[in-house]
């Protein structure tokens, strides 16, 4: 019976682990619902501001914002990497970082320089290990993406673009498809592409068809257009962050469910071993008794 106590202890410890993973699964499930709500609530703003940007690109504005102007040569790239702050969410962060790493390698091969803005702890750690140049960061976002927290880090990248330090800006994040499926994606943020702005806006509203019209700007065209464009890009990033958070919670839920199931298998295996050794010990004892009785 030497091994049976050890096996019993092990069963107990695995059971404890299972309790924790199960609790985390439930926590993630409730957080996931909230994160999805938040993602849905952020959508109208994104749609409306895209409508405004689409109207603006149709209007005859005397001032064209640098975000809308495509640049021919690409020498320096800015990237924004959205990851989660905490781990234990399956391959979520690994997938998006692998995607980023692939692009970074190809840029390196093309002799393009790149700088990184990290949103989330995991990306920051990874970029530190890889040795990429991190120009700004936001960590510890918590469960609610806060526009105020994001603005600072994002501004560094946007300013870099307006000051010609970057020719392109990309964002990497996990797109939320459904609870079981999240997809790491790379999207071009700047310069804003026409398809992106027009997207699925119907040309029916307002007078978007007519040319030769322009807005009245108060106080002036430039600051107002600047404001709109910055807000538009911020809204895109905000949306990416909310999607990534929903993805994180659902990935964690799935990962923790798998972990609980695995712990269950371990327990079953260990219980079998425990019972076998227990029965072997009983049989041995019995045969000893029988042999002893026969000898008498």
């Amino acid at each position, binding site marked *: 019976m030497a091994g049976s106590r050890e096996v019993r202890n092990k069963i107990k410890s695995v059971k*404890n*682990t299972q309790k924790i993973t199960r609790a985390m699964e439930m926590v993630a499930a409730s957080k996931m619902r909230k994160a999805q709500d938040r993602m849905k609530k952020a959508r109208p*703003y994104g749609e409306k501001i895209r409508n405004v940007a689409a109207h603006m690109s149709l209007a005859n504005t005397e001032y064209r914002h640098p975000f809308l102007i495509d640049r021919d040569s690409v020498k320096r790239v800015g990237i924004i990497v959205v990851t989660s702050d905490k781990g234990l969410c399956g391959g979520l962060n690994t997938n998006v970082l692998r995607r980023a790493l692939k692009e970074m390698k190809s840029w390196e091969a093309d002799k393009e320089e790149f700088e990184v803005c990290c949103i989330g702890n995991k990306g920051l750690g990874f970029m530190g290990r890889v040795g990429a140049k991190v120009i700004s960061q936001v960590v510890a976002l918590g469960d609610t993406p806060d526009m105020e927290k994001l603005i600072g880090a994002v501004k560094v990248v946007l300013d870099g673009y307006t000051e010609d330090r970057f020719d392109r800006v990309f964002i990497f994040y996990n797109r939320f498809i459904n609870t079981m499926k999240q997809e790491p994606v790379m999207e071009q943020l700047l310069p804003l592409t026409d398809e992106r702005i027009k997207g699925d806006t119907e040309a029916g509203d307002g007078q978007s068809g007519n040319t030769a019209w322009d807005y009245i700007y*108060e106080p002036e065209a430039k600051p*107002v257009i600047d404001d*709109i464009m910055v*807000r538009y890009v911020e809204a895109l990033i905000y949306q990416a962050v909310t999607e990534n958070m929903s993805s994180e919670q659902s990935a964690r839920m799935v990962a923790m469910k798998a972990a609980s199931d695995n712990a269950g298998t*371990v327990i079953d295996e260990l219980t079998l071993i425990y019972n076998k050794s227990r029965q072997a010990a009983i049989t041995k004892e019995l045969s000893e008794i029988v042999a002893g009785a026969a000898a008498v």
Partner: protein
Amino acid sequence: MGTIFHLDIVSAEESLYSGPVEFLVAPAQMGEVGIYPRHTPMLTRIQSGMVRIKAPLKDDELVYVSGGMLEVQPDVVTILADTAVRAADLDEAKAIEAKEAAEEAMKNRESEIDFARAQAELIEATAQLSAIQKLRKRGH
């Protein structure tokens, strides 16, 4: 057409108002602007303050907006608020926010400890699982 237009007030966090409107007053940067249907297209910044909305067959409604942008198209007006919460809900929302923040902080503290512990134990459990699988391949 002609006597009403569509108004949307949205902030990054939620949609605050969406519906037909006869007339509205917004606190634009250069002073308050009143907008009737078929207004010339206009883009302006707005300051924090109250937006007064007159919806058809309803009393005036006030929505608090703390800065943002106002876009006017002849039949559609959009207010992109930076942060906007309905005036009547303002105090209550703040109270809820404060409470939630406190609760969240408590929940996070717990979960962080759990995370560290669970991570350690999870690594152990995976090691055990692989050991058992190896064992099973060899013997049983």
